[in-house]
């Protein structure tokens, strides 16, 4: 602190200039820092918006596919058209091809060098007709031959540690499981098969010469040797039509067989009795394929279109019968569908047409994600690695093409988020939010509609409670209240806003909810009796002349009413028992559930309405009161002087003048209610249901984020959808607040001119 410019300390010549320069410099630095600080607020807001958008946008991003011809014709790819099994492993650098002669070639990608070779012990003249990998484990394969038998094979890639820069050596563990002889199904050649290999069961369904044969085997583990044996039975049925494609149900309840005319036939396991059929009348069926999860079937048609069907349970809850139903169609390809290839971890699939068009689809989203044309000749075989981040095509000339796919979120689209979606195992299209479940086959369901509805339901009930109380209270406080009382009451009510919402939520959930459950009738009698009683009291006060005697109480009525109100409340609660006895003949809540058929949750919309109403009353109150109080008294004085009553002056003059301010208070209150988290989290059951019932709970967008965000993994679809709901909240409150603020500024200008 040497030589403050204003302190009058004498300075040496030259010092003054240096000092001035230093002061100027300091001033400039301060200016810059403060500018930066001011801009940082805007930057912060833009950063929040920008970051949310940055996370959310990939949901809407167009998927991309890039075809890359690998330009190799590996030695093993002769007779490419006769490929029976084609697979790529998880990392996409190893593959497998099974040829007609029963030889397995395991090769590297992208070069196609063979790393291992195995051969099935086929008889002379015997060829492989068809092969299928199990849904649960791509390393288990069933191979059907022209001799009517099926080999069960398992393989596993074993990458060994490699020197830096070199490719890791790969060993392949290959076994023919359950005896090397194969399992005989028919004397005739097998045309098609499906195969499922679960934890403790194994199913093989084959089509051979117009006959359906299904083997259902239980796996029995020998406790001493650890060896697994199969205990199996065969079932047969003569079909009487030309089958084309067979698909096993994932839960082993039935088998579906398609015929060339496009009809689907379902047979019950284990006896193979015919169950039902479905004729889509689309002409010739060209491809039939089960989707991951084992519930849905995809049907490809000669006209290039693709349909999805699955069994739907009847409305009758006791019946529990399923009928096969046509669910949806997908955008058609240009020519007959030749290949349908499901992804193994999602409900997505790829389809290829005769002319080489490739479509990527997502079944539940009901949309074609992408369409492109495959380079090269007609497709001989296609394979997805489990991650489905690429697609490997082998064309009939034996050339390999790799299509790199960037398709991280096919399951999300505007219509899956907001419209009704028909999910597997659901009786009808609906709005469902269910992000996780215990089993692996589960498909996450991201419908924001029930959450948005829950948000609005919670806000609605809160506003229903808060708006009358806050507006009436604000009017009284601004217009009629004695100034001395107003100075105390206003801060007291504004203190309500300072109460942490976690406390309101906790009281609502643990105290109010059980209380109202016990005294539901009491709540209604309170709502009826207290206002009526208050009016009666007011009339008596007026008519009995007490008003004149205690005229000093004018402006202090709220204090007078507090004991009256408490008395009335006690009376109302006390009367509730006899009242409900008289009206519904017992407990109101039991009557609701048993007679009226209305389900009652302990933590319901009424509780949320009261608790959240409590938290937004002070907000609306404060803003509305300010607006009303700011109306120049000259206006109301003028009207009173012209002979209007206090009430007329309020209704005709003060309220209209202040109405924009009141509206802005309502908007800000609504914004607060929409984003409130803790109260809803604690005062409802957080079930994402669709319904406006006051006696049921809800799940709001904000509470949903609080519940699920900590468990969601970064960059997953779930994560991004949660960010999307945060963005929705942000944008909603942004709009509401901007409107409110603009109105308030207008109002301020108007008053300034008065």
């Amino acid at each position, binding site marked *: 602190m040497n030589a403050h410019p204003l302190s009058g300390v004498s300075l040496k010549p030259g010092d003054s200039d240096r000092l001035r320069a230093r002061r100027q410099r300091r001033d400039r630095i301060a200016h810059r820092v403060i500018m930066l600080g001011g801009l940082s607020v805007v930057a912060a807001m833009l950063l929040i918006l920008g970051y949310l958008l940055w996370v959310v946008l990939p949901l809407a991003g167009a998927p991309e596919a890039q075809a890359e011809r690998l330009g190799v014709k590996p030695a093993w790819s002769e007779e490419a058209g006769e490929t029976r099994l084609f697979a790529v492993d998880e990392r996409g650098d190893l593959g497998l091809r099974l040829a007609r002669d029963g030889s397995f070639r395991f090769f590297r990608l992208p070069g196609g060098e063979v790393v291992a070779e195995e051969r099935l012990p086929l008889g002379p003249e015997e060829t492989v007709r068809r092969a299928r990998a199990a849904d649960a484990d791509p390393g288990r394969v069933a191979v059907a031959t022209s001799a009517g038998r099926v080999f069960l094979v398992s393989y596993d890639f074993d990458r060994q540690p490699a020197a830096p820069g070199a490719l890791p050596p790969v060993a392949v563990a290959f076994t023919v499981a359950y005896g090397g002889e194969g399992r005989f199904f028919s004397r005739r050649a097998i045309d098609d098969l499906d195969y499922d290999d679960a934890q403790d069961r194994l199913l093989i369904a084959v089509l051979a010469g117009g006959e359906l044969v299904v083997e259902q085997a239980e796996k029995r583990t020998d406790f001493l040797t650890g060896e697994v044996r199969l205990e199996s039975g065969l079932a047969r049925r003569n079909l009487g039509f030309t089958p084309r494609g067979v698909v096993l149900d994932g839960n082993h309840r039935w088998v579906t067989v398609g015929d060339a005319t496009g009809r689907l036939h379902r047979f019950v396991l284990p006896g193979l009795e015919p169950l039902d059929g479905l004729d889509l009348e689309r002409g010739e069926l060209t491809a039939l394929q089960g989707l991951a999860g084992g519930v849905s079937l995809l049907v490809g048609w000669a006209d290039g279109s693709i349909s999805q069907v699955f069994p739907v349970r009847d409305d009758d809850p006791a019946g529990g019968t399923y009928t096969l139903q046509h669910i949806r169609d997908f955008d058609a390809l240009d020519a007959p569908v030749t290949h349908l290839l499901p992804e193994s971890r999602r409900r997505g699939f790829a389809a290829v047409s005769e002319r080489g068009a490739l479509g990527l689809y997502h079944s539940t989203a009901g949309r074609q994600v992408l369409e492109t044309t495959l380079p090269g000749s007609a497709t001989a075989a296609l394979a997805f690695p489990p991650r489905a981040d690429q697609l490997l095509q082998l064309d009939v000339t034996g050339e390999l093409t790799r299509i790199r796919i960037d398709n991280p979120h096919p399951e999300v689209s505007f219509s899956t988020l907001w419209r009704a979606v028909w999910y597997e195992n659901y009786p009808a299209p609906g709005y469902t939010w269910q992000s996780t479940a215990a089993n692996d086959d589960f498909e996450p369901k991201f419908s924001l509609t029930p959450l948005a509805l829950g948000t609005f339901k919670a806000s609605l009930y809160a506003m229903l409670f808060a708006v009358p109380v806050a507006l009436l209270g604000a009017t009284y406080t601004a217009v009629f209240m004695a100034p001395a009382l107003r100075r105390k009451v206003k801060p007291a009510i504004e203190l309500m806003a300072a*109460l942490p919402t976690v406390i309101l939520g906790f009281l609502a959930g643990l105290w109010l909810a059980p209380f109202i459950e016990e005294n539901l009738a009491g709540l209604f009698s309170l709502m009826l009796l207290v206002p009526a009683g208050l009016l009666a009291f007011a009339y008596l006060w007026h008519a009995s002349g007490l008003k004149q005697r205690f005229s000093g109480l004018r402006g202090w009525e*709220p204090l007078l*009413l*507090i004991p009256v*109100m408490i008395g009335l409340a006690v009376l109302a609660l006390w009367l509730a028992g006899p009242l409900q006895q008289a009206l519904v003949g017992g407990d109101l809540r039991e009557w609701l559930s048993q007679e009226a058929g209305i389900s009652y949750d302990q933590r319901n919309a009424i509780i949320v309405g009261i608790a959240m109403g409590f938290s937004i009353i002070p907000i609306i109150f404060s803003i509305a009161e300010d607006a009303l109080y700011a109306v120049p008294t000259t206006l109301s004085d003028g009207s009173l002087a012209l002979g209007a009553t206090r009430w*007329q002056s309020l209704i005709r003059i003060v309220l209209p003048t202040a109405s924009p301010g009141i509206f802005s208070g309502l908007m800000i209150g609504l914004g607060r209610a929409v*984003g409130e988290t803790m109260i809803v989290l604690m005062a409802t059951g957080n079930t994402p249901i669709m319904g406006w019932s006051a006696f049921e709970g809800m799940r709001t967008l904000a509470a949903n*984020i609080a519940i699920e965000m900590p468990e969601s993994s970064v960059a997953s679809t779930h994560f991004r959808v949660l960010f999307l709901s945060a963005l929705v909240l*942000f944008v909603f409150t942004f709009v509401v607040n*901007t409107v409110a603020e603009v109105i308030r500024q207008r109002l301020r200008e108007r008053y300034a001119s008065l």
Partner: protein
Amino acid sequence: MRRSDPRQWFASGAPWIWLQAAAVSLSLVMVLGLLLLVATRGLAHFWPSPVEEWLVDAPGEAPRVLMGQVHRSEWVSAERLREAGIELPDDVGGEVRRHLLKIGNRDVAGQDFTWILDRNIRDRSRPLNALVVERTQWGRFIGRLVGIREAGRLVSLGNEPWPELQERLDRVTDLRQRIDEIERREMTSVNYRLERLRLEEIGLNRSRAPGEVAGGPAFDRLAEERAVLQRRFDALAGELAVLFQEIRRDSLLLATAAGDEVEVSLAVVLDAWRPNAMDRRQRFSHYGEQLWAFVSEPPREANTAGGIYPALFGTVLMVILMSVFVTPLGVIAAVYLREYATQGWFTRFVRISVNNLAGVPSIVYGVFGLGFFIYVVGGGIDQLFFSEALPAPTFGTGGLFWASLTLALLTLPVVIVSTEEGLTRIPRSVREGSMALGATRWETLWRTILPMASPGIMTGVILAVARAAGEVAPLMLVGVVKLAPSLPLDGDFPYLHLDRKFMHLGFHIYDVGFQSPNVEAARPLVYATALLLVLITLVLNLAAIAIRNRLRERYRDLEAQ
């Protein structure tokens, strides 16, 4: 009389005015009622309520003697009880009174609480020698003291054990304090330093050129330090073993109400009192002790017993850090808006931004904090500075730093608005005077304007602190936990551990009230915690209001000029 004609009265609009007054009354009743509810429930828990001894003879059951403290009483309809499968004589109708009795002895009876119908109580008394024992596990024991054992030998019987118990309890308390100090402070510290050595070694190994042997002075130093720490650890473990032996020396012979004898090691006894034999002074002093223990001790038994000290500490520390971030930023932004920027469309836009930031739901800040601060910034910091600890994240997971930063962003508008208000109230003449005397803009601001605006800034910061203290939703995403193993401030370098997770009063309420295994036992504690949180926010808000009022008084004269 004309004036009592109801139609006339209605037409005058008077009923509406009364309803408006009633709305104010309702708001006041709700606020006061809420405060009263929280206060009574929260404070009543610590009172040494008397132990009742009841002879209960319920129809269809053998008569039994119960001892316990009445937790709460209520009226229920007989109909509902019958539906719940409770036997009642046919002539009983209407409402029946029942009590929730806290019988304690969870180790013996399996549950802490039991419902007793008032009409089934045959005999009631409050025996003077009834004893309540607070334990570190299995909750309270309620019964009688029979004797005291020292190393398996009975040393005291009959009525004398009570004074004896007090002495031995003091001894055990001292021992426990020492054990606590070793376990919580000294051993944790040694472990923390060992972990740092381990990370340092990983770092050394990483920086080593390929093929170079692990060795050299740096490694030797590590080994040496590790050996020292290990010796220290062993010494502590040895001391601990001795202390454990000491603390287990005595045990209490207790009798339940039914007469079963139970032996309880004094090592698990925290406190023991005979509520029925206490006089008023003793009760108050006991009450005070319990209250103090509540705010000064860590929680026990999955947060259903004990105190809330770590949550209180975490809340305060987080709020202090937050104010460190938010105050300069908020003040600078407000100064920019009011003093530097030309008022126009841009300032209008900034003000609307501020307003919007104030209206954004708090959970959105939590999402932003989690995504941007933790995953993007924190993940980056980990890659750069804490790569030896990866894949275990240091700053790439929720923690104190990110929580305070998130809340600073959340409360920024509060500080800006309040500071701006303070600045607006300073008359132009003050600025002009300062500038006329030759001060630069910055000097005017620093020496004149900001000191005058300081009450406004204070108000803003206090309001921000009050808001942050009660905010829970965003914290759930950015670093609050139900039970933090250690406080974020301790004696180990760097003393303030910004990366640690912490406990928070608001989250404690949510967690204990809604996720607790023993809700009935935990509920009074939740009320007490809620009361504390309400008090903190109310006091802060009242302080802000008081400061604001003083500020207005102070500049009233200036404004008049």
